């Protein structure tokens, strides 16, 4: 499930969070499913355990997962996972239209990706997150 790329410049904890969200979107993870433990993720991926812990904490804060004392991390059962999937479903046509519009302008896939990333980063920087 996790495929972080350390040299991409994007914080690894952020990549892990995105990958969990993505797995929920695609249905690979469902409400109540258990996530692998922090130690195991750290040792399997050879990444810092603190980074994995941080990703899990942030995901819990966002209501995506639940950390149960001594039992581990579970995909939240409170409907938020469903809400995210629903939000994604509604957003998909918007993204599709944007891509079509950009394609009509003659942009390649790679160019679109760069454009999106650049806009996201600018929004991120402005948001002062």
């Amino acid at each position, binding site marked *: 499930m996790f495929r972080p790329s*350390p040299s*991409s*410049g*994007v914080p690894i904890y952020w990549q892990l969070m995105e990958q969990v969200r993505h797995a929920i979107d695609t249905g690979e993870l469902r409400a109540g499913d258990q996530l692998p433990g922090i130690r195991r993720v750290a040792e399997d991926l050879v990444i810092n355990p603190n980074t994995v812990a941080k990703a899990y904490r942030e995901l819990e804060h966002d209501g995506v997962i639940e950390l149960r004392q001594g039992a581990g991390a579970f995909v939240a059962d409170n409907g938020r996972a469903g809400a995210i999937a629903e939000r994604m479903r509604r957003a998909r046509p918007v993204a599709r239209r944007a891509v079509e519009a950009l394609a009509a302008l003659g942009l390649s896939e790679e160019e679109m990706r760069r454009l999106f990333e650049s806009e996201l*980063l*600018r929004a991120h*920087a402005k948001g002062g997150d």
Partner: protein
Amino acid sequence: MPEWAISTQALEKVYGGRPAVRELNLEVPSGSICGFLGRNGAGKTTTIKMLMGMARPTAGAVTVLGHDAATREGGVGIRRRTGFVSEDKALIPGLTARQMIALTRALYPSWRTDLEQDYVRRFRLPLDRSVERLSKGMRTRLALLLALARAPELLLLDEPTDGLDPEGIEQALQSIVAAAAEAGTTVFFSSHRLAEVEQIADRVAILEDGKLVVNDSLDELRASYRRVHIVFDDHAPEQLRALAGADMPGARSVSVLAKSNVDEIVLEARRHNARAIDITPVTLKDVFLESVGR
């Protein structure tokens, strides 16, 4: 456990009139994995030796695991609780790997035979070969085993993956991460491989000419730096060229490494009717090259 595993104040070391380390204020929180970067001769090895109580500071204070590393007793206390791999992976000539392990085991009450045997198997160490007949990769593995099997609270590793093949690097990093994940061991390791620092570290310290120029969490660094690439119709304005550090008059584009002044740069670029502005995340390599002044 103290909040800081390593803490130095205005630490200084002078060798024969030449300062090797100057005004070093280094703090490594307990439980973190800190990558220690710097060019060759920047003072990394000297710093690590001072942290181990193996080199006496010329001035300043150095506290490791609550011990004063500048005193004899403090040094002994640090060395009892710390796993160390030296830059030259020094072992005792004339001994076999098995003898190195047996003799070292006897000096550490915290030694864990299960870890020792686990690493002997995993590293596939030729136990009965004398250490000077081991390949550099095997010497490094043996040095790592000796450091890890004592179940240390702190690992001070001077280029622990130097001279290893890709498989060896992965094994070394795995063992370091396992120590951190299972026992909460604090790790402070120097390296020239930025990719491995990005992979396992959560903090980065960068030393340049004996001085610390960066000492921050890796996520902070990634969040605070951005690379802004700006293209103009005509040549790039002078202010932005100066920011980029590279002066190429007539060039149509500039690439600026921005630290918390992204908005300012973007505004400036817009004011000069920039044709395209690309903002991309930075890698540790960008930050490193910027910090050591290219």
